[in-house]
């Protein structure tokens, strides 16, 4: 047998290139292209009275200056609303360049094209925009109060009112033996990939074709959007996502204004044009996420079992809603985690504010949902004097209840039905890993030394691998190498390795023989994109199915060559052989040659496939009616519904009794993403997610002032963790394969981040002895809470303990 590759920690195929400076990110391409800079709004809410570009016209090196009125036809129309939904009654999207009004700091107003970025920025400095100020709407409470409106025609600033309901939650809560109410808050953060966005476009007037390189998570859909906006036939537009320096959600939004404007300028000017976002631009003109206020009303019995859960959420969607209400949908469904809620009702108001748009950031609404549920679990345990793990376990969906139908609609428009998972087993692993049952002794010993410690846990379920589909193409070349393509994109997940492992196993070739291309519409035209931890599930299964087709064809052709029944054949290390008959073999390279009847040869190998070398049956066509030339295959994987991965985190924190500085002593993860393709890559995904979870709990927040200025729009002030801020991560896996797909994969990309704020709130609360209901939390905020608690301002039955 060929050495099995699936499940092995294979070293990444992409690494040598990336490590030696040979990666190609968008800004590495297009030397000599014209470069773009934008005049962006310095105000959060204003009417544009006048734009005066005259001062910029004599800047040497200026090629073009565009405002909204220069944009023709569909280029000048508002950007698409990507995911319409009935509840989104007041969806609004921006123009590529602002028309009459700006709704957040950073909104693009003027596009300058010049010989290089320095010159383009010089010109931007000389362009004068006159504004009439409008009252800015900043913060969820201000938006909810609706004294002022972001969009004149959107009453109450409400973009959408989404209700998810299963049973009569309000009645269930009212009749429950115990009732608790919690007010919770999560602040804004952002994906913040190390590479910002970037677009490079090359128009070939002779060929009437356009090639666009963009740092995107959805190249096929960018292609469709560019073709539609520029009114070009789609087959004259190619979109390539080359190496992408991280995405984490922000690059699934498309088309960004720049993804339309840069290609349009390239066509209009007949020149290569490039735009590379700088860090400040990324802060004020890309996307943020997470900001929510939540009110939870929960009814439960004396055992801690939920009878009813009634949640109201106010979600800050920023100035526009190009990505629809995916984040609210995910929060309101994934809030349920591994638990049976009894009756459930969630009502979410998605509100406009004069801030940067809010679209999915790794976790995409799940961290907030997890926060609501896990804070509730801890509150119930505290109220009843029960162990927090016990309360969770009593509410778990049991393995014998799978598949479990929550009676709600998930983000893919399909029913929310969990496919598999063993939550009690995961909890057991987690408790052992962190030493949950022994913690009281540890706490006592620490206390004796004057140290203040606490332990917390949080559980989540993550719907992964949402449809509608992905496809895969697999081809065996005549030299025996294998090329694979799939349409979705890569931003560091190691797809060139993971998909190669899958195909290598399916075909029976060494993994080194397999080369994978992703996110290039020249190689694969149909795709959805990389988001929702779906790449491994969707494209992983698609390339497996395509490889199975190729294998079947290879065995058929080899069977003819070896005069053997294909069922008696196997492929080992790239060679087809008759099982148990040494010597009866044909290499896949030869099978590839034989699969393509030739008239012309170009080397010795292909001479074997020419018409006089292999005359075949003179009564039959060289290519059978139901066959195609070439040893290749394409297939698609389209699931009926999502898979559901799950996990649980636990952390031990120590908090300085004087300064309230929070140190994470241990951070433990138990994770179940079904079949592992490459455990090393999965572990890396967990590590990165946990770092972002810790960041969202202790460090990162977007600080807007009342005027809508983002006060910390730089890496100096937005506290992304360095190595010294991320704890050592201890991880353990559980593998319950998904029954929904051939490989049993569930997806792992977002898992690590989801329970971060919840588990650390739980541990800090345990250490301090008072409720934590707002994250992130800084030492100074915690210190302030302590002072309030000491002054007995804290209401111990209600959790209204915001600052």
């Amino acid at each position, binding site marked *: 047998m060929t050495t099995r590759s699936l499940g092995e920690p294979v*070293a*990444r195929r*992409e*690494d*040598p290139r*990336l*490590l*030696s*400076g*040979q*990666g*190609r*990110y968008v*800004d*590495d391409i297009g*030397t000599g292209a014209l470069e773009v800079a934008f005049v962006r709004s310095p105000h959060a809410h204003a009417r544009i009275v006048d734009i005066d570009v005259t001062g910029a016209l004599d*800047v*040497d*090196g200026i090629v073009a200056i565009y405002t909204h009125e220069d944009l023709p036809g569909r280029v000048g129309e508002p950007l698409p609303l990507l995911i319409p939904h009935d509840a989104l009654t007041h969806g609004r999207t921006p123009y590529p360049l602002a028309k009459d009004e700006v709704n957040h700091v950073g909104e693009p107003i003027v596009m300058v094209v010049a010989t290089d970025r*320095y*010159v383009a920025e*010089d*010109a931007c*400095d*000389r362009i004068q925009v006159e504004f009439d100020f409008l009252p800015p709407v900043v913060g969820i409470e201000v938006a909810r109060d609706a004294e002022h409106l972001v969009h004149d025609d959107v009453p109450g600033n409400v973009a959408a009112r989404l209700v998810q309901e299963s049973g009569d939650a309000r009645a269930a809560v009212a009749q429950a033996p115990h009732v608790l109410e919690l007010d919770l808050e999560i602040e804004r953060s952002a994906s*913040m*990939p*190390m*590479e910002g966005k970037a677009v490079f476009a090359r128009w070939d007037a002779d060929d009437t074709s356009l090639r666009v390189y963009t740092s995107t998570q959805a190249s096929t859909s960018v292609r469709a959007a560019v073709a539609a906006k520029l009114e070009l036939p789609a087959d004259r537009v190619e979109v390539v996502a080359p*190496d992408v*320096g*991280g995405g*984490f959600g922000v690059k699934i939004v498309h088309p960004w204004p720049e993804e339309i404007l840069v290609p349009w300028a390239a066509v209009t000017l007949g020149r290569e044009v490039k735009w590379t976002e*700088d*860090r400040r631009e990324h802060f004020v003109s890309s996307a943020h996420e997470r900001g929510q206020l939540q009110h939870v009303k929960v009814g439960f019995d004396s055992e801690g079992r939920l009878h009813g859960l009634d949640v109201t959420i106010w979600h800050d969607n920023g100035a526009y809603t190009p990505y629809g209400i995916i984040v609210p949908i995910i929060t309101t469904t994934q809030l349920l985690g591994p638990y049976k809620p009894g009756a459930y009702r969630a009502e979410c108001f998605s509100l406009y504010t004069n801030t940067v748009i809010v679209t999915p950031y790794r976790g995409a609404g799940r961290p907030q949902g997890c926060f609501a549920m896990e804070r509730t679990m801890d509150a119930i345990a505290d109220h009843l004097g029960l162990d927090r793990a016990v309360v969770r376990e009593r509410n778990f969906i049991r393995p014998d209840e799978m598949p479990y139908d929550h009676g709600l609609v998930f983000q893919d428009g399909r029913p929310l039905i969990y496919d598999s998972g063993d939550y009690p087993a995961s909890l057991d692993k987690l408790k052992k890993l962190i030493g949950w049952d022994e913690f009281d002794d540890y706490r006592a010993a620490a206390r004796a030394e004057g140290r203040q410690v606490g332990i917390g846990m949080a559980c989540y379920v993550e719907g992964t691998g949402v449809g509608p589909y992905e496809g895969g193409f697999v081809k065996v070349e005549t030299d025996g190498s294998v090329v694979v393509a799939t349409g979705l994109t890569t*931003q*560091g*997940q*190691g797809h060139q390795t993971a998909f190669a492992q899958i195909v290598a196993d399916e075909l029976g070739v060494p993994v080194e023989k397999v080369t994978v291309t992703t996110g290039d519409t020249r190689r694969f035209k149909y795709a959805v994109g990389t988001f929702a931890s779906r790449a491994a599930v969707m494209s992983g299964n698609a390339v497996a199915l395509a490889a199975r087709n190729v294998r079947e064809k290879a065995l058929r052709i080899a069977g003819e060559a070896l005069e053997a029944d294909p069922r008696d054949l196997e492929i080992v290390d790239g060679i087809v052989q008759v099982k148990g008959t040494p010597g009866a073999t044909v290499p896949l390279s030869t099978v590839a040659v034989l699969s393509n009847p030739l008239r012309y040869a170009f080397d010795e190998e292909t001479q074997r496939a020419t018409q006089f070398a292999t005359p075949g049956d003179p009564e039959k066509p060289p290519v059978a009616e139901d066959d195609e030339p070439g040893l290749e295959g394409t297939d698609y994987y389209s699931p009926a519904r999502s898979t559901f991965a799950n996990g649980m985190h636990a952390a031990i924190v120590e908090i300085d009794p004087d300064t309230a500085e929070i140190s994470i002593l241990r951070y433990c993860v138990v994770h179940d993403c079904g079949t592992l393709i490459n455990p*090393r*890559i999965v*572990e*890396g995904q967990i*590590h*990165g*997610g*946990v*770092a*972002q979870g810790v960041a969202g709990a202790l460090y990162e927040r977007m600080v807007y002032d009342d005027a809508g200025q983002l006060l910390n729009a*730089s*890496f*100096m002030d937005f506290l*992304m963790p*360095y*190595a*010294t801020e*991320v704890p*050592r*991560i201890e991880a353990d896996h559980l593998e319950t394969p998904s029954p929904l797909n051939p490989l049993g994969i569930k997806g792992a990309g977002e898992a*690590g981040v989801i329970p971060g704020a919840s588990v650390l709130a739980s541990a800090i609360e345990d250490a301090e002895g008072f409720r934590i209901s707002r994250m992130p939390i800084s030492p100074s905020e915690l210190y302030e809470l302590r002072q309030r608690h000491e002054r007995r301002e804290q209401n111990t039955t209600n959790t209204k303990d915001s600052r």
Partner: protein
Amino acid sequence: MSDTSAAEPRHEVNLVVNGVPRSATVPARRLLSDFLRHDLGLTGTHTGCEHGVCGACTVLVTGAGRSDDEGVSGRPIRSCLQFAVMYDGAEITTVEGCTRPDGELGPVQQAFQDCHGLQCGFCTPGFVTTITAYLEENPSPSEEEAREAISGNLCRCTGYQNIVASVLRAAELKSEEVGG
């Protein structure tokens, strides 16, 4: 705001990059990072913030008027905070220069692959150069020291776990080479 008249003066910058003499004529305000990437075509050096915080643009410098240079590889600097004209006459090592003479991965690069120390790869060049310089200074760091050594570089993908491991592995590979 700069004067943007047609006659923006240009200056010839001669320096040695990765052992190769290179030269280009650029305006005084041209950043060293842009000079390396766009004038010399060495796009391995990345800019993640252009305000000196993320460390992705770190390159190693010897010379350039400093008398305190030490070590084989040079001292790490943030090329996004420097003008190219300041480095006339200097020797610079970028990530492309951290490979072995035969083009194979150098010890720090190899350690990153062995330990899965990178995901998207965008911050990686800055880590590779930073660690290369650090190991000259401290050839056998503890885990704690390794963590400290990389604590000026941002990575958004890895959570740093495997980068710390990569520092230790690189030290191991380098000592094997010296020993062997």
